[in-house]
């Protein structure tokens, strides 16, 4: 599916993710693929994109891929090198439009687990926990997830642990719990396609397939039923220019090499 090996899957996902961002918005990014997507958007169609890091970097022109969200590259040529309190408060107050997150597993309402596999008290596998993810998923107007391994083990009926809120149990559940009104998961990008959430049910719904992927593959790689609309789009392949910029952003292939 890599168009004569001109680009790899990660590069496709980065381009699709970058395409969701625009020049008039602000975005919270984490390390890895979300940051690569933000940097790509900034260097192509969205030069005005305001990139914010949870540790305090505000509006940098990121020179090369930071390894940590607190790396000094996260405030290179920035408007401000501030604090977590400052940027988390700004997002709680409504200043942050998009939040980019990854996740180990997701359910049909876009709730995500990054804490434990198995029982919390006696975990089969201990994962790092929320970090800033719960805050990003709670505060940003629109949360975008990048999960490069969609399967029946990662798209599950019931999560072992809800680390970060999606739509919780369905329509109105976020507001009922007290989360800021009117926000929530917006898009989920996997190796197979791009999903949104059905307005009426708040359940995961297929929007776009990546080149060469079938609806059957999408459904086979999920434990829960995905809503499949009559019309499904196909995502655009990365341009030569996008691939060139991606390799400039991540010359060592730390992210896009995977």
């Amino acid at each position, binding site marked *: 599916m890599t168009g004569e090996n001109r680009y790899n899957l990660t590069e496709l996902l980065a381009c699709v993710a970058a395409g969701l961002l625009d020049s008039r918005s602000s975005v919270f990014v984490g390390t890895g693929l979300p940051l690569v997507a933000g940097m790509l958007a900034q260097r192509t169609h969205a030069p005005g994109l305001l990139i914010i890091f949870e540790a305090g970097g505000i509006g940098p022109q990121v020179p090369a891929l930071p390894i940590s969200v*607190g790396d*000094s590259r996260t405030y290179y*040529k920035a408007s401000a090198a501030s604090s977590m309190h400052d940027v988390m408060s700004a997002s709680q107050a409504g200043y942050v439009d998009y939040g980019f997150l990854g996740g180990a597993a997701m359910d049909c309402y876009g709730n995500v687990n990054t804490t434990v596999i198995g029982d919390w008290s006696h975990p089969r596998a201990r994962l*790092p*926990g*929320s970090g800033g993810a719960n805050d990003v998923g709670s505060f940003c107007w629109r949360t975008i997830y990048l999960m490069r391994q969609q399967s029946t083990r990662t798209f599950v009926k019931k999560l072992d642990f*809800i680390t970060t809120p999606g739509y919780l149990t369905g329509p109105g559940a976020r507001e009922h719990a007290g989360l800021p009104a009117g926000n929530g998961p917006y898009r989920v990008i996997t190796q197979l396609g791009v999903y949104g959430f059905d307005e009426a049910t708040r359940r995961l719904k297929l929007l776009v397939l990546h080149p060469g992927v079938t609806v059957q593959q999408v459904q086979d790689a999920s434990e829960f039923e995905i809503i499949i609309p009559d019309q499904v789009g196909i995502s655009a392949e990365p341009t030569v220019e996008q691939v060139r910029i991606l390799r400039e952003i991540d010359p060592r292939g730390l992210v896009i090499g995977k």
Partner: protein
Amino acid sequence: MSDPIKNSGELIGWHDPDENRQWVRENKSRQLVDKRSTVPEAIRKYVPDGSLLAMGGFGHIRIPMALIYELVRQRKRNLTIFGKTAVHDIDILIGGGCVSRVEVAYAFGHELRGLSACGRRAVENGTVKVTGEISNAGFQWRFLAAAMGVPFMPVRSMLGTDTLRHSSARVIDDPWSGKPVGLVPACYPDVALFHVHRCDKFGNAQIDGIMVEDYELARAARRLILTTEEIIDHEEIQRVPWRTVIPFYLVDAVIEVPFGAHPTEMPVTYYFDEEHIAHWLEVSKTPEGTSAYFEEFVFGIPDFDAYLEKVGGIRKLTHLKQVLKLQPDLPTSGEGVS
């Protein structure tokens, strides 16, 4: 108003605000006194076994590694760590057998560098207990509440999730809007360890780059130990007092330790020692490799100076400064001081 909803996370680091005010009144000096000390003495004096500990910095950034290695060297036991994005520090401390409990916002991972073999092993086999979960903002606002001397901070994240259910936060109805809101309890670490760019002998400190949550943490902890790249004259502090992010009365000990954050990054000063971090991540995959690491880099040598020699000495450290400076137009350390 409905009764508050309690969650199951263990409440740690909390004090009644009046009890803490009294403690501050009796224990924290308001005098400009010389607080210079040594790494072994400061750790011996302020970090008994069983302490509740938090580190300044974030992940692999500005981590007080000289103090961390000394905790291992003095074989501290049963420490509780506030895992407010604790990465390299907690990994070394767990590997060194110093930790028994962690409250987790983010731990047992190394961001882009992968997962922590050593931390995960300890939680999965029960050696280290997770007391509760929280988010990064939640943790930092626990410190903010303590810094302000108020009992809690209202928070609008975590609601509706298992992160909240396994936290020590409670949920009440906001008396004004009527909407549910989370309350995170104030958190007063027994001790916080920081590495800063420069401070005077009284503890007035300047930090370059982002503060992350250190403004709040420095004010929340009962005891604060600073290692610093450089001790500067008090007159330098007075010349640009707006650069002081930690005033002296918060600080208990000051130790000059150049490269005290190695192998983590000291913003605008030196970069990560990627080679040494990779070495740790590799050897810590097994308990044997972990022990061998501590024999080589802690127990087998007298102090942090010897450690710096061992990891490559002046040649390596100069290189780490250069790696950082190779990025064009980065501000140099201390810019904005004059």
